[in-house]
């Protein structure tokens, strides 16, 4: 589990594409991979959730961990492609205000900082 594909999307940003169910079973892998990206110099991260079937609070925790790591390095973490289930969980936990969604990965870091 984990070790999902990560691709550069220009201007130093990278997109990570996890899939399946982001739950307790894989949350540590996701957290580690996000923190590894930051430690590797990628502090602007887009997490493409279009391949994610569902997310639970453990998966959310991993995304928040990645967000904090990115911000501490002067970057940010955004999401794109959330399913209806993911949107519902984000709203129920009030994390829709923290884990901002971009229409596409490529547009995530466009515009003024």
């Amino acid at each position: 589990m984990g070790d999902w594909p990560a691709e550069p999307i220009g201007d130093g940003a990278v997109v990570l594409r996890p899939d399946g169910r982001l739950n307790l079973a894989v949350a540590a892998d996701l957290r580690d991979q996000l923190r590894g990206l930051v430690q590797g110099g990628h502090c602007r991260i887009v997490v493409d959730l279009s391949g994610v079937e569902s997310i639970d609070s453990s998966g959310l925790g991993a995304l928040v961990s990645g967000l904090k790591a990115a911000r501490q390095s002067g970057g940010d973490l955004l999401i794109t492609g959330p399913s209806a289930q993911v949107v519902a969980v984000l709203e129920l936990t009030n994390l829709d205000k923290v884990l901002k969604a971009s229409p596409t990965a490529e547009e995530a870091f466009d515009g003024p900082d």
Partner: protein
Amino acid sequence: MVRTDRLVLDTVTGPATLDDIQDSLMSLWAMNPEVPELIRCRVAIAAAEVGANIIEHAGLGVPVRMRMESAVRAHSVRVTFTDEGVAAEVDLTRLAMPAELAERGRGLALARAVLAEFGYRRTGVVDEWTLVSDRFC
């Protein structure tokens, strides 16, 4: 009218348990196609959180016997989890979302948010969690 069809998942917690929980619910939906998608989604969210809580806390990292029973009755979905692990130290009346940048502590509050009834009790050495969805027509 009381429907007697129910599904039972009797297992020992392990890496596949969370998938087994969702697969069991998929079977329940197949048996009860009248359950609306919103109710299915909400029950799946709550069951995932309770299952994860049992795996992580009741077993303290060690596999623990767990039983999940699910059924559609009286226009609502009812799921019960029992385990023989460590008692949960939780007050379901005081659940709240943690600070927005917290990395833990949302699971049971999330489950509570999507259920009409959410209960926990410890009887002897058995934990019992009760999850009841909103009613649907």
